């Protein structure tokens, strides 16, 4: 095996687990995860000559994986994309208070609640728009900085921050709803069940 191949494999090995997780979650159809992994690694290998030694390989390879995810999802004939939600009925004050109360109850022990809602985390992720999902995954799994995410997705910093903020808000709301539905939170400030 050549030195170049050894170097590439060693760099990939260091990001193996997060890259596998990214490929698992970045596709809209679960069956496409392995296709994405193969496309991302193959493209990274073909373009390895462009990688500048000493720079951030993790950001470089996640950028390629994010671009390949777009291609794989475009080719896929899976479920329709989640779209921006139309403005619905604004929650009234009582609903807002209950949601905030439930959220604060979730925050009292977030590790336990999320551990019991692992399936719902994936469901919540599936409700994000493509940009929200990409930005969240690159931040949460790829551990990329805002600038690196913007670079990966050809997106200005302001958009990165906007998508990430919306993605986090939606994830928190969906997990709070799921926690309430599962009875993990739900004591309202008014004392009703």
């Amino acid at each position, binding site marked *: 095996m*050549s*030195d*170049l*191949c050894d170097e590439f*494999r060693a760099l*990939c090995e260091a990001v*193996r*687990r*997060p890259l*596998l*997780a990214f490929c*698992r*979650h970045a596709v809209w159809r679960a069956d496409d*995860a*392995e296709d994405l*992994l*193969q496309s991302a*690694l*193959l493209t990274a*290998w073909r*373009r390895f*000559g*462009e990688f*500048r*030694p000493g720079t951030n390989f993790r950001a470089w390879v996640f950028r390629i994986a994010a*671009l390949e995810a*777009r*291609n794989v999802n475009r080719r896929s004939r899976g479920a329709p994309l989640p779209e921006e939600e139309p403005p619905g009925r604004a929650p009234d004050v009582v609903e807002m208070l209950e949601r905030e109360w439930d959220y604060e109850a*979730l*925050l*009292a022990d*977030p*590790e336990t*609640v*999320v*551990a019991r809602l*692992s399936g719902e*985390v994936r469901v919540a*992720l599936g409700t994000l728009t493509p940009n929200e999902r990409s930005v969240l*995954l690159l*931040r*949460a*799994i790829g551990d990329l*900085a*805002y*600038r*690196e995410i*913007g*670079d990966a997705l*050809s*997106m*200005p*910093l302001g958009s990165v*921050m906007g998508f*990430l*903020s919306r993605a*986090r808000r939606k*994830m*928190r709301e969906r*997990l709070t709803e799921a926690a309430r539905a599962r009875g993990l939170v739900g004591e309202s400030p008014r004392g009703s069940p």
Partner: protein
Amino acid sequence: MTCPEARALLDRLLDGALDPVEERALGDHLAACATCRGRADAEGRLEAAIAGALSEPGPDADAAWERAMARLPAPRRSRAPVVAAAAGLLLAGAAALWLALPRHREVDLAAALLACHGDLLANRVTLTEAPIGEACRSLRSRIEGLPKLPPALPEGFILAGSGVCYRDGTPIGYLAVHRGAAPLSVAVLPPASRAAFPEAWARVESPGGLFHCRASGLSFCAFRADDGLAAALGDVSPADLEALAGAWRR
């Protein structure tokens, strides 16, 4: 700082993305407000728990990894001097001069433009088709301090589209240009890009103000454009790129 103002900054605090002024103000608030301090801690734990749940590679992931690695083709080149690839290039009369050029790895902007060019060839960029005067106005309205584009490209070069791309958070005025059938990528940068691309700036500020190198088998040329910087890359001769640069350097 009020509690709602502090809470609006908590996500960016978790991401290490606050500027020093915000960080100091938020730090002062958290030091004085136990409620917001508790909220910051709890939201940090929640985000870590969500990231942990998303970071599970899933069943059979290791087998998929091994299959993907096993399918990578054998290496075609190494970081050592490229003897085999060079042999094909020796057909051209100017090849000896071309091969003497430094490698793009030494120049930051060449690597960035190469990535843009890859996106262009893979049809991953969205560009606006407009005459060069309109492209100039549009790009200069979006990137502060961007040098003007020339009123026209040299004969034989056709502007296919323009847009703004970002590399390391730095906006780059990007032009897709055709030279016959060969697509070229052209980057135009304002003086403020000096911090992002120090190597390219150092090269073009040397005598001559024009710098050539090879980048993954393509020609790359960087040059001064007014008080900014421009660069071009493509599967054409260095002389072609120099002709294109001439439009800025008149």
